[in-house]
């Protein structure tokens, strides 16, 4: 499968090479180099999709080299059905972020593009790392370019927002570091994520470890009540920063739950499930109400993110196939839809220099094409069937419903509220007469903007109408994750159990990563 070709290393470090080239090149070439480099990374990431074997639950494209002898730290990379979609999401969105910043960023273009590309390296690294230390390095590296994106190219209140962002995430990260060290000593003196996932830890220890990891991941998601950094960060960040932040960065939190909390700490995960479900439902409803009250477009979308990410965590902790697959799909969907909405806000901000809804009223008349895009993404955010978010939300709600009917009912209220806040926004932005300065000439989307929005529309409908290819890559990995939870056997419905068991036994044996020595001989 891997053919020994270091695909992952290539796509992780190519952006760094690009960043280096920008550093030595002329300022006027920075945009072109960044675009070329990120597009190349995108093209190189496509073979991952083609070569990926969806029937295998194990890690694929594994690379493993000893990095530090003692403690044994490896340069270990690999992806499975959970990380592959996220890697592709990142490589897909980065070129769009370069495009969206093409004219919006006027000062320090070089540094901006370097930050973007460093960001890409760090985020892909996070999704690919199989060694906890390596993961942690990428995880922390990512903070710096993001901090700079907000702090240097942000709005008037950018320093406050950047510091708040930094503090929140760093506080979580420190606790993750603590957990990392404890796991090293308790999990057999290894940083190998797969090995750590196979070890078993005492229940009390799991409890504390879960809390430590929760601090790191919940801040990133962000889960209620750790969400207050998000609106500030979004409002101040430049468009590309907002897109990366919403589409990729937030996913690291939910990815962390899936990669660390659930497989390493199954008992604690089970203990905390009710709390997580309640926090998720609060996030869904609370975020929606908050969005309803906003007058600033970016803030509105930021709070809608809180609500949407609530669906993701709801699905993850429902701990059944529908819930988790829905959650992963929803991570992708949120990346596409919310990223697109932030781009739309960026486009209009370049024209009216305001993100206030009142200043951007009645855009359908002067900018019909823009209005069309905006409405499509808004409806996708509402979760209309035939569009991407519906499939994810539907799965998540089914999963949550199997877990507890009452919780799912409350979450379904979020569906109503989503329609309310999104359409209320559309009503004010798209409909009506043009706002305060009707005389001002508003130019419709140009070719560059058209070119970056069209692929996103494509994804909206592709995942909405034919999500099978995306779901197919997840099945095996998700089943394995659930097998580790021991939850397949206790699932409510007898038929579900049978089918899953059959699929597990007739499918691959869990944890057989190619090229990884088989230390994991015990079946879960």
């Amino acid at each position, binding site marked *: 499968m891997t053919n020994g070709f270091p695909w992952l290393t290539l796509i992780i470090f190519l952006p760094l090479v690009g960043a280096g080239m920008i550093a030595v090149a002329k300022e006027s070439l920075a945009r072109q180099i960044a675009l070329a480099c990120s597009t190349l990374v995108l093209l190189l990431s496509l073979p991952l999709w083609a070569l990926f074997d969806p029937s295998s639950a194990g890690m694929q494209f594994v690379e493993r080299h000893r990095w530090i002898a003692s403690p044994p730290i490896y340069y270990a990379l690999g992806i499975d059905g959970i990380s592959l979609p996220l890697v592709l999401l990142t490589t897909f969105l980065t070129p769009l972020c370069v495009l969206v910043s093409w004219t919006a960023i006027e000062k320090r273009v070089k540094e901006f593009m370097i930050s973007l590309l460093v960001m890409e390296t760090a985020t892909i690294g996070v999704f690919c790392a199989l060694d906890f230390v390596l993961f942690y390095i990428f995880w922390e590296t990512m903070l710096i370019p993001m901090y700079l994106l907000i702090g240097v190219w942000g709005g008037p209140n950018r320093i406050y927002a950047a*510091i708040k962002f930094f503090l929140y995430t760093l506080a979580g990260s420190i606790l993750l570091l603590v957990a990392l060290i404890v796991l090293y000593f308790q999990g057999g003196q290894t940083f190998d994520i797969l090995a750590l996932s196979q070890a078993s830890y005492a229940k009390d220890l799991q409890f504390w470890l879960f809390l430590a990891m929760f601090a790191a991941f919940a801040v990133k998601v962000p889960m209620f009540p750790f969400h*207050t950094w998000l609106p500030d960060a979004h409002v101040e960040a430049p468009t590309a920063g907002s897109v990366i932040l919403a589409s990729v960065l937030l996913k690291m939190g939910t990815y962390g739950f899936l990669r660390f909390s659930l497989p390493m700490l199954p008992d604690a995960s089970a203990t905390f499930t009710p709390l997580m479900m309640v926090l998720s439902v609060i996030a869904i409803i609370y975020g929606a109400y908050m969005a309803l009250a906003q007058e600033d477009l970016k803030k509105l979308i930021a709070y809608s993110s809180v609500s949407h990410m609530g669906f993701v965590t709801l699905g993850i902790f429902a701990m059944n196939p529908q819930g988790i697959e829905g959650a992963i799909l929803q991570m992708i969907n949120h990346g596409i839809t919310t990223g697109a909405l932030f781009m739309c806000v960026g486009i209009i901000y370049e024209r009216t220099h305001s993100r206030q809804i009142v200043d951007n009223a009645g855009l359908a008349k002067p900018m019909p094409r823009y209005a069309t895009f905006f409405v499509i993404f808004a409806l996708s955010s509402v979760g209309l069937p035939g569009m991407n978010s519906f499939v994810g939300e*539907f799965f998540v709600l*089914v999963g949550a419903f199997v877990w507890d009917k009452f919780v799912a009912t409350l979450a379904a209220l979020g*569906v109503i509220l989503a*329609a309310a806040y999104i*359409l209320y926004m559309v009503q004010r932005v798209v409909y009506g007469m043009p706002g305060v300065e009707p005389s001002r000439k508003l130019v419709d989307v140009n070719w560059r903007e058209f070119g970056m929005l069209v692929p996103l529309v494509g994804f909206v409908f592709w995942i909405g109408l034919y999500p099978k290819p995306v779901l197919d890559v997840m099945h095996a990995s998700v089943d394995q994750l659930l097998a580790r939870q021991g939850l397949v056997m206790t699932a409510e419905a007898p*038929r579900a159990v049978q089918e899953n068991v059959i699929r597990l036994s007739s499918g691959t044996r869990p944890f057989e990563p190619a090229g990884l020595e088989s230390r994991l001989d*015990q079946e879960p």
Partner: protein
Amino acid sequence: MFELLVLLIPLFPLLAVLVNGLFGHRYSHEVAARLAYGSVFLSFLCALAVAADVVADPQPREVVAYSWIFGGDLSIDLAFLIDPLTTVMLLVVTGVGFLIHVYSVGYMHGEEGFTRFFTYMNLFMVSMLLLVMGNNYAVLFIGWEGVGLCSYLLIGYYYDKVSAAKAATKAFVMNRIGDAGFLLAIFLIFSHFRTLDYTTVLAQASELSTGMATAIALCLLVGAVGKSAQLPLYTWLPDAMEGPTPVSALIHAATMVTAGVYMVVRNHAIYDLAPIAMTAVGIIGGTTALFAATIGLVQNDIKRVLAYSTVSQLGYMFLACGVGAYIAAIFHLVTHAFFKALLFLAAGSVIHALGGEQDIRKMGGLRQKIPITYAVFMIGTIAIAGIPPLAGFWSKDEILAHAFVQHHYGLYLLGAIGAVLTSFYMFRLTFLTFYGPSRVDPHVAHHIHESPKVMTVPLMILAALSIVGGFLGVPPEHGLLHSFLHPVAASAGGAAHESSTGLVVGLATFATLTAFAGLGLAYYLYVVRPHMADEWARRTSGLYTLLLNKYYVDEFYDRIAVEPCKRLGDMWDWADRHIIDRVVQGINHMTDKGAAAATWIEKHIIYGGLNIIGYANHLAAWSWRKLQSGMVHHYATIIVIGLAVLVHLLLFWLTGATPGSYAMR
């Protein structure tokens, strides 16, 4: 061949949507229109062919397009079910839909958004077809939301009108309330049956406990109430009249709003097991039928009267479902599609003739000026009023007879009073519009003209259908429609037919008399003694104002739902900024100070430093410096906290358990 035909039915309009939507701006309105109605006509032809096939062999058949989603044990195909019920709905949707498309070519002529209008209309056709053809609840739901979307887009068609935008949002959000109920029903069905296919679910429905069946049926009912504009979720429909008139005819009268009725009939196997839910359906239907009719008595906007009449007529269909008369419900659905589409389109023709005027107080005496419109409007009125032998008489009478024979006397009474009122307000509308002296604005008066053929021909066809449509269900209980639908929609306890012929004839005679009573009263008040009506209104001014203001339900909802929702949002917004933010930070004081300090440092040291060092200072060094100088305090604080937790963990770990318990397996 059969399968291909079935797949082509939604595919034709879908292609038209794609072509008109993507390239519509490149060619003329005429081409766009031809594509739009042509595609619907092709669908209609396919539907006819399918219908012929189903008549020959009424066995339900499944056609799978492709596997849509699959995860865990949940697997959903985009699959269609073709049985007699679907066939009837297909013919109504494509047939009436085609006529309305043709009419729209004339009505929307010269509109700036002509192509956009037809793109939305075709998209609506696709969604509606998915809704009635789907073989599982997920496809039903796709169609369900799809028609809601198109309704939203078309109500807001005149996008620069704020009232239209508001009405559109209102319609969608109110529908969503119903949709949430529908979603819960889907989850209940899935958690019980582990599939969403009708074929399995409905075949195994008898295994449901009464409680479960009631829960599913009530959740479905919430969805149906939203979509079919029943009490208490009906207020969006009158506002939906902001859309162009053909939209009102197609979506808000003939097809989409009947989706709730279709859903209840489709799931009658579940409803039959849930007497409480059945009673709820019947009561909601009966009260809505009467309630909406009373509001319709005094409205002055021609389209709003028709809108309330639609709500009321849908109430009759629900009433029918509630008493187990499913075939009668579908029968009324079909005849209503004919005469209500006719009435709306004829009203559109009136509005067209008067240059956009919708207030019936500014009409009158139009009989001679637009004779074709007058004739067809009159036919529609007679049909809806329940005067034999036009369509409405047969279907409405069958519903009321069922209610009476099965001893639902309360529901019968609601329906019977509603019938008198229906007859009255419809003839009031007709007389005020077409009889008496002209009250038309003199500027408009000499522009009055009959509509072009492209509009009048569909009107005449619909008028013909409104006259003869009722004979599908004649003789009562044993008509063509009944024998066709019997395999799929016969009620479990359909004992209605054992009643004596005498009773049935008696009820029919009584119904006819009440219809004539409404007609007579309207004639007396609005033609013979035109001043009487105003006098009556003055004498009962309290009641009149109450009705004119639609019982203040909108205001009530604003007060109890919309405003508190917004206020809650605002309140939480405040709390979020002032309470949660601070509490969670815990180190809020530090952060505020830190932010201020960092800002100061940024301003005075970093930028200062940058200026000195100049451009040569590259990003890495710059940011590193910034981090180091700006963040030291925070690093320190956080590391202290981290250490504290670490120490805590270590302590716990050393004291809390024996080392052995942590060993690896």
